[in-house]
């Protein structure tokens, strides 16, 4: 009896809403998104980010860690090291940064869908490597591991911001905190910090990762059809939000250090 459920793997499916309902929703939804003044599913205005909840020191056994919650997007990042590099690695007089992003099986509404995000690990690495002072830990490796507990849209930007907070918590030297924000283009509107539903209908997206106090962009991705003025507008929107997010992250770090230790 005990091994029964694990040995047999019957084909299962999650019950989806009735087809009839779905069609109706679709016909309603898409035009709504194209309208000039539709209301976002969570009631925010277009230029309004979700409230950010950030805490450092989420995982005790790590050198540094952070938990981030933006709406339904929940992420934990642990930083280990600097520690010995893998045996196979060659000698290097600068440090190495090793990043990995994974999803829980229940992160998205359909079970086990999180494995679609293979490129996130290398994108996290690219976003961080420009900010971390690799020469401050020669010959060793710093591991940055992220786990998306729940995916609610804009996952990668949240992971990146949370990772830089965890690096700061671990005391790894950086030029500046790295903050990341994405914008979705829906019809003629630019929508900041999109949720999953908005992302699935988006016509284009722009993600910017920046070091706000140095006014430098470390990572930038764009997809969809854009004209130059629109890019300009979206970049300004993102950079402005990055600056504000940077302030929130800074105050989170300040709180963590000023709070009395246990």
């Amino acid at each position, binding site marked *: 009896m005990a091994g029964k459920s694990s040995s047999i793997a019957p084909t299962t499916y999650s019950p989806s809403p009735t087809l009839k309902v779905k069609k109706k929703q679709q016909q309603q939804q898409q035009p709504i998104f194209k309208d000039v003044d539709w209301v976002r599913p969570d009631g925010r205005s277009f230029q309004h980010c979700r409230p950010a909840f950030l805490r450092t020191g989420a995982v005790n056994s790590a050198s540094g860690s952070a938990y981030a919650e933006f709406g339904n997007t929940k992420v934990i990042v642990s930083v280990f090291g600097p520690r010995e590099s893998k045996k196979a690695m060659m000698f290097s007089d600068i440090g190495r940064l090793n990043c990995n992003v994974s999803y829980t099986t229940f992160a998205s509404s359909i079970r086990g869908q999180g494995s679609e995000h293979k490129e996130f690990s290398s994108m996290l690495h690219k976003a961080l490597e420009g900010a971390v002072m690799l020469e401050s830990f020669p010959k060793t490796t710093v591991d940055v591991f992220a786990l998306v507990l729940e995916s609610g849209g804009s996952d990668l930007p949240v992971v990146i911001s949370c990772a830089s907070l965890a690096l700061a918590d671990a005391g790894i030297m950086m030029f500046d905190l790295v903050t990341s924000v994405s914008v979705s*283009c829906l019809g003629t509107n630019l929508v900041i910090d999109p949720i999953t539903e908005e992302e699935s209908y988006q016509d284009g997206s722009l993600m910017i990762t920046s070091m706000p106090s140095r006014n*430098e962009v470390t990572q930038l991705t764009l997809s969809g*059809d*854009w004209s130059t003025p629109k890019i300009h507008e979206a970049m300004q929107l993102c950079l402005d939000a990055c600056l504000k997010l940077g302030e929130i992250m800074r105050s989170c770090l300040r709180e963590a250090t000023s709070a009395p230790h246990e």
Partner: protein
Amino acid sequence: MVGLSVGEKHFIQGGIAQDLRSDGRKRLTYRPISVETGVLAQANGSARVKLGGTDVIASVKAELGRPNHLYPDKGKVSIYVDCSPTAAPMFEGRGGEELSAELSAALQRCLLGGRSGAGAGINLSALIVVEGKMCWDLYIDGLVVSSDGNLLDALGAAIKAALSNTGIPKVNVAVGASADEEPEVDISDEEFLQFDTSGVPVIVTLTKVGRHYIADATLEEESQMSSALSVSVDRHGHICGMMKRGGAGLDPSVILDMISVSKHVSDQLIAKLDSEISAAEVDEAES
């Protein structure tokens, strides 16, 4: 990794600063491009593009599938890139995996547009056979045969050439099938539909070395880069995708400047590529 002496590094950097690169090019000039189409018999379309020492092959395969329920009026396209171990010693074993994943993701972003399909270089609505029931799934595979820098631009060009070489069999849907049933189809092996590739963008990568940026960097030049910006631009000058590579940060105003430069470069690249593709098609038809 390219092992360069201090002298060689200075030579490359100095040349770029003076607008005269090691191989005699100016900063924004591409290496000679050669295009060969129809190189793989079993694929629906294929092309081989050589850009200096960089050599890539792209193939397109079409299969019938079911459209995504969110977008019943659109076909599906997937892009996958493989780095052959013959291209560079570092691609052996699992070494090329990360680069493969990165290139695949970058090409998908540049060519397939937003999640809703808007801004896609490939007209996804043309792939539909029966709305909501059946569509063509395009599997685009890229293979890096030899690598001498600027893989992304070369792969983008190869995919564009392979798509224009692609013929999709005409499908006749049997009339009278009820709405619920799987439609019965008859795939013609004589009539082919040509693909409209005028909307497929080209990818231009600008590599920043020192204070200047160069187009079409070689492997040696790439080893000296501080960062690079890949922009995919279509015929009308619209940006269809963009991503930054390399570690160092960039000032936002520099990025905007790089975008306008890459737009300018893309005009020449599109014209050059179009003439090469049509020449290759003529060659293929004659042989």
